[in-house]
């Protein structure tokens, strides 16, 4: 899973720096760079992977199709293909973390398949290794970079410390209301598992190896997708019938999305507290309100103040590829 969204599953991923988003539509790949001042969108070839996920370093991604997955790295204008390996079929989600061993930083992947199988995909020297861990109902895998481990959400919250040779899973606890949870996500700043129930978001923190409820925030009904911003301060709440909203966690305030973002099919939380709407036409970046702006307005007028700022910012921050080509579908070298 990644900190970005589209209407058709995991075929969109934002890199760990929050500066690049890669997504696939029906038959094309697109690369959006959305660091402040460097916004542009380019086509990246004609290939439709089954899934995309962020790699463990900035500009890095993992793409998989069938039983093959490969690492991709954006370097300048070029999307380089890196290691490629066989993976179990029908992966639904993948996460990656850099693990240290004998002075070397190695990227380990963790994939969740459609049947609740969790696969830790490492490398033993030059050869790939796979270890399977069972997590009933596994539906998402998230990285905790601080602890260099994975958090797998299913009927339980299971933490997997991915020693390539011997993954060490431990179960922090059952995911309460698992059957009623409409969406789940993990925030690595607060180290909490978010889940959307009808009319309420619940956050449980992993504290001393246990799950402890730390938030219960009423929200409008119908949440089917949760995306956490890099700093943990914002949640994007997706709903099947539209009406997606944004929640500021610290202030517990839910607010409507600016129009440009609300209508986009691909969105990403970007670096420096930005929410980006991405399409083949360009990047619309909204500066999320800074803390000062959330706090120093009175409750009676705060929603209006946020809305005002977001609408205003979205219109001035509209940037497209600064050097548009005859067709903006420029093929990216190396991955055509």
């Amino acid at each position, binding site marked *: 899973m990644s900190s970005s969204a589209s209407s058709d599953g995991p075929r969109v991923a934002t890199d*760990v*720096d*929050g*500066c690049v988003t890669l997504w696939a539509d029906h038959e094309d790949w697109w690369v959006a760079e959305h660091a402040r001042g460097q916004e542009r969108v380019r086509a990246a070839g004609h290939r439709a992977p089954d899934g995309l996920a962020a790699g463990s*370093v*900035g*500009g890095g991604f993992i793409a998989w199709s069938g039983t093959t997955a490969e690492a991709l790295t954006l370097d300048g204008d070029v999307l380089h293909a890196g290691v490629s390996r066989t993976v179990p079929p029908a992966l639904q989600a993948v996460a990656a973390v*850099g693990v*240290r061993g004998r*002075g070397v*930083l190695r990227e380990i992947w963790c994939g969740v398949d459609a049947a609740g199988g969790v696969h830790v995909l490492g490398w033993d020297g030059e050869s790939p290794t796979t270890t399977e861990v069972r997590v009933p109902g596994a539906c998402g895998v998230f990285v905790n*970079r*601080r*602890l*260099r481990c994975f958090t797998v959400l299913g009927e339980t919250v299971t933490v997997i410390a991915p020693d390539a040779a011997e993954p060490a899973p431990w179960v922090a606890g059952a995911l309460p209301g698992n059957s009623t949870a409409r969406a789940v996500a993990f925030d*690595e*700043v*607060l*180290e909490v598992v978010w889940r959307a129930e009808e009319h309420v978001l619940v*956050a449980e923190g992993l*504290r001393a190896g246990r799950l402890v409820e*730390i*938030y219960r925030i009423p929200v409008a009904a119908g949440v089917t997708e949760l995306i956490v911003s*890099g*700093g*943990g*301060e914002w949640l994007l709440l997706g709903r099947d019938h539209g009406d997606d909203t944004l929640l500021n*966690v*610290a202030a*517990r305030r839910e607010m409507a999305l600016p129009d440009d973002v609300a209508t986009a099919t691909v969105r990403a939380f970007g*670096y*420096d*507290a930005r929410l980006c709407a991405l399409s083949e036409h360009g990047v619309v970046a909204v500066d999320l309100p*800074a*803390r*000062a*702006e*959330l*706090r*120093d307005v009175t409750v009676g007028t705060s929603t209006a103040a946020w809305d005002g700022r977001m609408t205003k910012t979205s219109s001035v921050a509209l940037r497209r590829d600064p050097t548009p080509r005859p067709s903006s579908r420029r093929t990216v070298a190396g991955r055509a």
Partner: protein
Amino acid sequence: MVTQIMAGAQAAAAQEVRPSRFTYAVPHDDGGLVVYNSMRGAITYVPQSHADAARELLGNRTAVHRRPDLPQELRPMLDGLLTRGFIVPDSDDELQDAADLREQRVARTDRLELILMPTESCNFRCTYCYEDFGLDRMLTGVQRGVTELVRRRHEESGLTSLSVSWFGGEPLVALDVVENLSEFFIDYCAANDITYTAGMTTNGYLLTPETARRVTDLEVRSFQVTLDGPRHTHDDTRSLMGGQGSFDTIMTNLRGLAADTDLDLDVMLRTNFTPENVGSVPSLVEEIGDIAARDDRFTVIFRPVGRWGGPDDDAISACTGKDAELLKLDLNLHASDAGMGVGDTKMLRPGGTVCYAANPWSLVVRPNGLLNKCTVALRMAENMVGRLEPDGTLQLDDERMKLWTANDETQDSGCRSCAFRPSCQGAHCPLIRVQDGVRPCPSVKTWIGPNLQTFADLQRQGVAVVGGAT
């Protein structure tokens, strides 16, 4: 160890002598005298029985004494004061010595101090905090830039000393960045004979003994952790992002650190006090004393909460002026009584109150590669002095750099004649000069009398007030 000036001190050779322009002699409530010299970083308590003699010799700053002309009974005192630098030969050019002190500091090219923000994200939302948490983890290219900067500096200027302070946000939220860069620093410094030290300012929530072991293994050994009074006041001001309390977790962590006597670290516990919480700070001190009394790895410092530019500034009630200073000093004595080490002991040293922002070799690296000087006014234009490139080059705005590094005693005749000059060098807080255009005297100088009395008392209780020098 009590240091008193007694008869029988070694006679010095100088015949014509005068009080150093950097000597303070302030009365102690018990009738004695506290004598301090900011160039030597020396502080001494003179008991009442000898105080008149000391006053006689130090009272008139411009008086020149000829040893042979002094009454016999004053000569041992003169010798004692001369030995410790409170009195100096009349020929000494102390102004030049002070100018040299500042020059030696700023001219160093063999030193690099990096204040690194591995993230500006934080799991806390303190009411008085001035950060707005916009920048997440340090970008991959910026991490590369940091390692290349160290490499370049060494190749170009021959580094002898690298010091790294991890700051944030909450640095332990991005422990992986701390680990990645620390491993480079350790390896590179060891291979190139560079002295390496590292510390961290953390809210303490994630500083479990296990994490402490991980980071001390990476040579991060000095920690500053903040506690705002006992549970009920701390949790009011230093809550988690969702408003939950953090006190119990931090105390559990501190207990774990204290119990693990093999952990080689220093923990400075900082308490921010306001009129609301100050009454309950002593009970916190006792609680900490139960954990870490007489464990010299732990010290405490106290700071009045200021209006630091955060969104809640108007709502903050701040302790100010002399009241704040006296409360602070009182809390220091209380802590010492509770068996806790007092951390405010370096201010009396030469350079002891100079802010890092005033050092040309000190830079704050933000997670997006922006370079700042001051860690407070992060978004102030004058404080954005440049950018770190991924290849380690620094794009610096020289004029902005000078606002922080040359805006000191060299520009201020008042500072040049100040008795506290060697400690402060007119550079206690360059931000105050940049922002308000006024002289940034540290509170220890403004309220020098009560400070010296308190430090002398602490010294008599065995606290090494100026890092061992007396």
